[in-house]
């Protein structure tokens, strides 16, 4: 179980809800992935929703999201400024009755890189207002420290640009990030393309993975969701099982003590002593 702001979550997959072929397929993907948390974008889906009503529940799509029976993590996707992100977070709190917010402040329209300066500022404002902030950030350690200083209890570094499907492009940085924040729940957010990418970051000790396009854009989103659920569980189990570190030399898996292997001339084919992983 991973604990996020005091809430114990069984699944280590956080699934985005955008761009599925249909809500029915989204629902099937959520079910087969066994995810416990879905993220929802308010930025565009909120277009035109009344701000005056005290019973602001959004439209039928949000009703469907609520009916999924999993926790909702609203996000500020598409926000380009502190003000926009703060406003969107407040609308999200109203619509989904949650203090959770995935905070995303985009700095560059084309690359969708987070604006980490605005991110820290928006996090500070929202935490002062009682929000529990899940910041979408880069793998920069100093930014991570500043987010923690602002009051974030979870960090969500990318592993590659949003929607790029490249997988972890800088594993060394992700490893350093994990080492720098051993006690903080870390969720890799953005850039995952395949289940093997998710397994790889889970093996590094990350607590969870957040993804959307890798599932919604797949030919069979529901099957891909299930594959990700298994891949993430496998990566976590592997991490806990303390995997081997790579080494330069072959290591025999069969004990060689007591065998004549050390006396064999080097040109003889050795039936023992092979490096079998």
């Amino acid at each position, binding site marked *: 179980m991973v604990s996020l702001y005091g809430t114990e979550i069984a699944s280590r997959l956080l699934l985005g809800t955008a761009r599925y072929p249909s809500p029915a397929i989204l*629902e099937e993907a959520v079910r087969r992935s066994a995810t416990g948390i879905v993220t929802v974008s308010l930025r565009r889906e909120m277009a035109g929703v009344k701000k005056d009503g005290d019973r602001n529940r959004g*439209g*039928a799509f949000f009703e*469907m999201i609520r009916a999924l029976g999993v926790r909702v993590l609203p996000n500020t996707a598409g926000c380009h400024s502190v003000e926009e992100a703060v406003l969107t977070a407040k609308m999200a709190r109203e619509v989904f009755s949650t203090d959770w917010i995935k905070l995303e402040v985009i700095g560059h329209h084309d690359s969708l890189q987070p604006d980490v300066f605005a991110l820290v500022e928006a996090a500070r404002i929202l935490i002062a207002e009682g929000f529990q902030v899940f910041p979408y950030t880069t793998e920069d350690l100093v930014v991570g420290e500043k987010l923690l200083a602002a009051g974030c209890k979870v960090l969500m570094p990318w592993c590659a640009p949003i929607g790029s499907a490249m997988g972890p492009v800088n594993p060394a940085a992700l490893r350093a990030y994990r080492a720098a924040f051993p006690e903080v729940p870390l969720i890799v957010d953005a850039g995952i393309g395949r289940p093997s990418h998710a397994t790889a970051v889970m093996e590094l000790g990350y607590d969870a993975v957040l993804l959307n396009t890798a599932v919604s854009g797949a*030919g069979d989103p529901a099957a891909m969701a299930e594959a990700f659920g298994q891949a993430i569980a496998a990566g976590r189990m592997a991490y806990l099982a303390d995997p081997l570190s790579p080494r330069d030399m072959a290591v025999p898996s069969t004990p060689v003590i007591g065998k004549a292997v050390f006396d064999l001339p080097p040109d003889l084919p050795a039936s023992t002593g092979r490096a079998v992983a």
Partner: protein
Amino acid sequence: MRILVKGAGVGGLAAAFALHRAGHQVTVCEKAADFSAAASWLAGGMLAPYCERESAPERVLADGLGAADWWAQAVPGSVTRAGTLVVAPARDEGELERFARRTRGFEWLDAEGVAALEPALAGRFRRGLFFREEAHLDPRRTLLALRDRLVAEGAVIRFGMEVGEAGLSPASHDCVVDCTGAAARGRLPGLRAVRGEMLMLETPEVTLSRPVRLLHPRHPLYVVPRAGGRFMVGATMIESETQGLVSARSVMELLNAAYALHPAFGEAHLAETGAGLRPAFADNLPAITGEGGQFQINGFYRHGFLLAPSIAEALAARLAKTPAPATLAPETSGPEKLGHFLQGEVA
């Protein structure tokens, strides 16, 4: 039978025509004063079952294959059979591969092939997909012409009238078919609206002979040529139930994509913008619900002109208590579709 059809969008008029042709006495009642409230008034009018298959289930392809023939019969001269061209900007060419993997009915084109098909796009795209069997129509001309034909052949169509007004009482009809689209939300369980926004550009500088789709990971777009140098550019897909005006961001995205297709669109006149609500069920597939003398046809999503014919014929077949015509037989449409159609029917 005397049948009252509520709603004069593409679903209502197609149903009215199928029922009229089956020998029923049909009255269409539309609350709005004209067609402009119908989502289909803002439609692209692409009869593109293969392209839609990229993101839609097989049923959309199977049921949509007969649409071009149906419209050509219902409204002679309305259908242009020139196929669909799908292209992608150089840096997104991977999108073409993905699109191709998920459907069929196309041939690959190189740059010369694209230029031969659409000379206006010569030199702009290295590769393309050509869906030769697809067609398109002008939704507005088609709806107006179908209305005229129905009236000429003795059906009654009333605009600006509520059911219950002058002679439009359900009690004086044997059957009522509700085709009111997104307005049926709240009455039809599971029906939601998906907002769509479109533009109409007008320029003499670009000539296209067929719908062109520009693939883009974030802002896919289609451009459908219309008469008079007009181009329908669409369409956003937003999970919002607000009709309202087109947003500045959507206009920006649609124009950017149109400009990427051809820079001359940057000099075009912005003749019209529109925002409408597509009615959709959770699976984004249309359905006939109801029984006895009360039916509902709804949930066409982005497939009004493509799927209204098969739904209309299926309804006519049900009311006639005879099997559907051969083109709609189970072997071409699959059990999934029949199961869907028969929702709510008493055995």
